[in-house]
Every structure is written in structure tokens, then in C-alpha cells.
């Protein structure tokens, strides 16, 4: 698995650097933005889409499956790599916000929720990608882009106008540890099921 992770790192190095530069620019407010952590989260999602497209364009599946690896390792390495990169983007943002003193009191909670969000995204993305293939990536990327650019701001503004219908207040009343513990437990189960499903789907794939 180490070799697969090394391969991903070398192959996606340029994209990784470009996205990291984006995280840094937003975190340092060189490009002023409302919530840099949210943007780092979005970049982590787009990174997964971009690398999937890159793999497809380069026949990456044929190469990796001709090397001495089994398919289970390929899938688990994919999860590990994308979770690490996602957590890395968020961590980089938090670190830079700490350095510049721009972070809010709730940054720890936001960071934890963003990490859980990435785990959820990866857990949904990979089984669908291994099942539906490259076409899914193209369509889903457009949908995600439209959601982030058009739908999310509208829903957010609507929510803010109505004080998020009391949902946020209800969540805030819960103790941090309980909320995150529960969230982490559910997310861990979803991740395990997702990995299992992805392995089964990938083992059936033909190239």
C-alpha cells in the first residue's frame, strides 16, 4: 500500500500543490473570503474529483492493476490518500488561521465537523465512482459546482434569515464531546461499509 500512496503522491503532486496554494491564499486572506475553512473543505472535495478525472485520462487503472498489488490495496490506498489530503488541507488552513490570529473560538469544532464531512464525502464518492465510472465523476462534479456556487449560498442566506429554524441552537445545546463522539461513530461505520462496498465493486471491474 505504501507504493500506491507514493504513486498517488508523485502523480498528483502538481494538483496537490495548486490546491494547497489556494488553501494558503484563502487562509491568509490574500484572497478575502468569508470562511477559509469552508473553502478548504470545498477544495478537498474538488481535489477528489480532479484526481479521479486524471486517473481516467491516463489509463491509471490499467497501470496500477498490472503492477504487483491486489485490488483491495488499491481501494484502501485511495481512501487513505484522499482522507489524508482532505485533513491536510483543513489542517493547513487551521494552522495558518492560528498563525495570523484570524481563527474563531469554534475553530476546533468546525475543523472536526469538516473532517467528518470529508469522510462522508469520500465514503459516498468512491462506491459511486467504482460503480458508475468516469461519467459519474463528470456529472457529479458539475452538480457539486452548481450546488456550491448557486444552491448553497441561497440555502445559507435563507437559513440565516430564519435563524436556521432553531436547528443550530438545538445542536449548540448538546455537549461538544457527545456531539462529535456520536458523529465520529456514525461516520466510522459509514466509512467501513463504504470501503467494503468499494472493494467488492472494484474487484468486479474490468479494464
Amino acid at each position, binding site marked *: 500500500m505504501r507504493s500506491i500512496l*507514493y*504513486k498517488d503522491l*508523485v502523480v498528483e503532486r*502538481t494538483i496537490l500543490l495548486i490546491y494547497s496554494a489556494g488553501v494558503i491564499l484563502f487562509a491568509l486572506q490574500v484572497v478575502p473570503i468569508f470562511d477559509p475553512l469552508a473553502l478548504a473543505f470545498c477544495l478537498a472535495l474538488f481535489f477528489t474529483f480532479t484526481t479521479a478525472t486524471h486517473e481516467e485520462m491516463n489509463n491509471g487503472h490499467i497501470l496500477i492493476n*498490472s503492477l*504487483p498489488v491486489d485490488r483491495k490495496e488499491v481501494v484502501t490506498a485511495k481512501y487513505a490518500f484522499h482522507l489524508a489530503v482532505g485533513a491536510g488541507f483543513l489542517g493547513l488552513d487551521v494552522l495558518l488561521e492560528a498563525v495570523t490570529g484570524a481563527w474563531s473560538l469554534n475553530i476546533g469544532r468546525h475543523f472536526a465537523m469538516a473532517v467528518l464531512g470529508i469522510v462522508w464525502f469520500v465514503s459516498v464518492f468512491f462506491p459511486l465512482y467504482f460503480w458508475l465510472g468516469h461519467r459519474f465523476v463528470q456529472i457529479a462534479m458539475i452538480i457539486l459546482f452548481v450546488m456550491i456556487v448557486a444552491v448553497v449560498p441561497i440555502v445559507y442566506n435563507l437559513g440565516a434569515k430564519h435563524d436556521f429554524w432553531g436547528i443550530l441552537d438545538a445542536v449548540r445545546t448538546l455537549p461538544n464531546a457527545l456531539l462529535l463522539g456520536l458523529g465520529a461513530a456514525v461516520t466510522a461505520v459509514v466509512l467501513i461499509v463504504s470501503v467494503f462496498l468499494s472493494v467488492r465493486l472494484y474487484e*468486479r471491474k*474490468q*479494464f
Partner: protein
Amino acid sequence: MEDVAVLDRVSKFYKGFKLDRISFSLKKGFIHGLIGRNGAGKTTTIKLMMDLVRPDEGSIRIFGLDNRRHGKEIRRRIGFVYAENPFYDDLTAENMKRVVASFYKDWDEGAFRRYLKLFDLPANKKIKHLSKGMKMKFSIALALSHHADFIIMDEPTSGLDPVVRREILELLSEVIQDENKTVLFSTHITSDLEQVADTVTFIHDGKSGFRFRRMKCWKGTPWSRAERTFWIRTRGSRLSGSGKRRSVLKACPTIRNGFTRCSGIG
């Protein structure tokens, strides 16, 4: 004599094409050719052997192991060369080598450097900036640099100029001097096979047709009844140290003639 690969009634069905109960075996220490016109099923056969596609029927054993159950172990001993470039275009040859080398415990950096020099390949050039011939040579250099016992090549000479083709074929002849190594290469260019192949398996419309052997037979190991053997023109032979093999000289049709006779393709 040891079989490196055995395909037993392997079938694969696609819409509009089927590979129909292909059976053949590949003996250790020889260059085996797989010939057939475009779309005959050569690439599918190779992909089946590499476990990139799964057979609908039949079994494939490589190094005596089931290729699905022991894929990782088998691929460690295989050097592969595909007709289409499987490498990342944005990487330099050097970085691509680093990636591939990290998967093999017995990667031989010295051998790789020798092949780079032999092929005059620039290590710092991106894959996308290499010509088709250079990409193929690079692919061959990678395949030969981890002491693979079995080299599988899908159309390694297709689309290349005669000089590069000759270089590649000469290299294959050198590789096979080590009797532990076996080469399988597919092509639709009959003259390539005439130059180097010891045996030729002919695939036509998804069926394994006839089998040619060149210049040699082995005492006590007659050809199977299923195979029809055509002796092809004499070119000298390699004798093993064991002395069990003996060469047989016999005037016979060329591969081109056999190909024409089998397929009806003139």
C-alpha cells in the same frame, strides 16, 4: 518442460465479439508469438492473462498458479508492455520509473540505466513529449528492469519504424538467452514473428487456430493433438544444456503462408 502459462478453454463474451474457448500453453525459455488481425482477440487474451478482465469460462494458470487468486504474486514476476501508453503523460520518464520501481523489491537500477542508454532515452523528458517508439522502448526498459521471469508484450512493434522494430526484436532475442525467461508478444506483423518467435499461436475471430513451431522439437513431448503444427523455415536453433532437445531441420511454409492458409486472409 515447464509451462509458464496455461490457458484452458478460456472464453470471454462482449457485445459483438467473443473469445471462444481459447486454449494454449507457453513453455518456459522461449519467445512465443500471438498473431491475428486487428480485433481478433489478442489484446483481450493478454488482458485476461494480466487479470485486467475476467474470463466468463475457463481457467488461466501462470507459473502454476491461478491468475485470479494469486494475481499479486504472479504480477511480481511479470514484465508488461502494452500497445497503448499506460503511463502518466505529465510525469518525466525518471519520475515514472520511480513510481514503477517502488512496486518491485528486486528492481535493478543498473539494468534500467543500461536500457536507457541502449535506447538513448532522455530520463528528464515528460512521457507526453516522447515519440511512440520512445514510449515503447521506455515501457520495455521498465518491463526488463525487475528481473521478470515472464515478459508479456501487446503489439510492441506496431506503428514503429523498421529500425526501432529491429532493435526491439534483437533485444527480445538477447533477453531469451536466459533460459529462465519467457516472452509472449502479440502482433499482426508476420515478419516480426519470423525473426524471433519460437512458437506462434494464431487467433482468428476469437478462436485459437493453429500453432506453429519453429525449428525445434522436444523428445518425449509431442505436440498435443489439438494443435496443428506447421514447420516453418529453418533458421538454426538454440539447444539447451540438458541435451534433451534436438533441432529438426525441415523445409516448411513461412508464418505468412501459414497465416494465409489458416485465416484465408491473403
